[in-house]
C-alpha cells in the first residue's frame, strides 16, 4: 500500500494503519533498532513502541515519506532504550559514537549551545553536497547504524573501500563544521 494511503488510515484512526506500516516497514525498523539496542527482544519492544508513537503523533503530523518518518521514530526510541540498558561493553552504536567523536567541538557555554542550531543546517548542506552513493553510505552507517560488512554488501564493494569512504566523509564533515564555526 502507498505511504499516502497508510497515512490516511492513521488520520482516520483505523488500526489497519499499524498493520500496513508493519508490513511495509517492520523489517527495516527491526533491523535499525537491533543495530542500536543489540538484542532481538529489545528491538521487538522498540518496534511496538514506535507503532504506538506513530499512532499518537499522526493526527498532528502528515509525513510525506512514511519510511523516513518511522525510521526517525524507531531510532529515537531505540536510543532511549540503549541508554537504559547501557552496557559498559564497547559495542554496536558505541563504536559509531566514537567514530564521530572528532568531528565536533565541545559545547559548554550557552553561547556555544546556541551554535548548535547551525549544526542541523550544516549537516543538511553536507548531505546535499554528496553524490547519492556517498550519502547512502554515510546514512547507512550514521543513521541506520549498519555494520561495515552490511554496508559493503548493500553497496557491492569491499569493506576496506567502505571504511576509506567513511573516513574521508568524516574528514569532509569535520571541515564543513569547522568552517561553519560549529
Amino acid at each position, binding site marked *: 500500500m502507498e505511504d499516502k494511503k497508510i497515512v490516511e488510515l492513521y488520520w482516520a484512526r483505523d488500526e489497519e494503519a499499524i498493520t500496513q506500516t508493519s508490513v511495509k516497514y517492520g523489517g527495516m525498523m527491526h533491523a535499525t533498532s537491533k543495530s542500536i539496542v543489540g538484542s532481538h527482544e529489545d528491538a521487538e519492544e522498540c518496534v511496538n513502541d514506535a507503532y504506538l508513537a506513530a499512532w499518537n503523533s499522526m493526527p498532528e503530523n502528515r509525513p510525506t515519506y512514511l*519510511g523516513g518518518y518511522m525510521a526517525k521514530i524507531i531510532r529515537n526510541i531505540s536510543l532511549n532504550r540503549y541508554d537504559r540498558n547501557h552496557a559498559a561493553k564497547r559495542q554496536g552504536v558505541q563504536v559509531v559514537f566514537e567514530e564521530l567523536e572528532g568531528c*565536533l567541538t565541545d559545547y559548554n557555554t550557552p553561547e556555544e549551545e546556541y551554535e548548535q542550531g547551525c549544526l542541523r543546517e550544516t549537516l543538511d548542506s553536507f548531505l546535499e553536497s554528496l553524490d547519492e552513493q556517498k550519502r547512502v553510505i554515510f546514512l547507512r552507517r550514521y543513521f541506520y547504524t549498519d555494520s561495515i560488512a552490511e554496508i559493503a554488501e548493500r553497496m557491492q564493494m569491499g569493506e576496506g573501500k567502505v571504511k576509506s569512504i567513511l573516513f574521508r566523509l568524516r574528514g569532509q564533515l569535520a571541515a564543513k563544521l569547522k568552517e561553519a564555526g560549529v
Partner: protein
Amino acid sequence: MNGRRLYEEIGGVDERYLQQAAAYRARRSAPAWRALLIAAALTLVGALLLCTIAASVTIGVLVGILGEGEEPTPPAPMEQMELAMQEAQQKRTPYSADEVEPMLFHQPMLIFSEQGSDAYYTVSLSTSECEQLILMMQSKNRTEFTEQSQAPKYQIWLSFGDGVVVSPYLKNTAGNTGHGEVFDYDPELELGDALAERIAAYIET
C-alpha cells in the same frame, strides 16, 4: 560525548534522504569471464534464432503458396501468463499462507495466488532467474496501474529466499517489501509484456 551529540543530530536529517538510503541497493556487476560467457551464449542463441526465422519464413512462404490457411494468433503475454498460472493450479500443490511463509527463508521463488483465494502456489527459481526478474521489475518503461487498467486475476510475489518478499505489481521502493510473509496489496504498476512473458516461462518450465 560529541560523537553521541552528532549522532543524535543526524537523526533529524531530511526524511527524503532516509528513504533514499533505505531503498538503495547497488547492482551486482558480473565478472568479466561471466560477461564473455553470456556474450558467447547470446551469439549462439542469435544464430539459432536466425536459422529458426529463416526456416519459418520458408515454411510460411510454402504454406502461403499452397494456400494452407492462416497461423492462429498467439495469446498476449498477460493472457499467456494467466493461462500458465491456471494450468499450474491443476498440477501444483496449493499451500496456505502459513505454510508458504517458512518457505520464504529457503530459496528464491515465485508465488502466486488467484485473487480472493487462500491457496498459494510456488515456483522455485534459481538466484539468476530471481535476479533477472528483479532487473525487469526495475524497468522505467513500466506504466502506472490506473482505474482503466484491467484488474489482475492473480496476485504475484517474488521471494528472494532470505525472507524478503516483493511484488512485481508494486513500485520499486524499500517500502513495498514484506518481511517473511506474503502480504495483501493493491497493484501500482502494470506488469508489462516482457515481465509477464518471463513469469509465464518460469511457471511453464
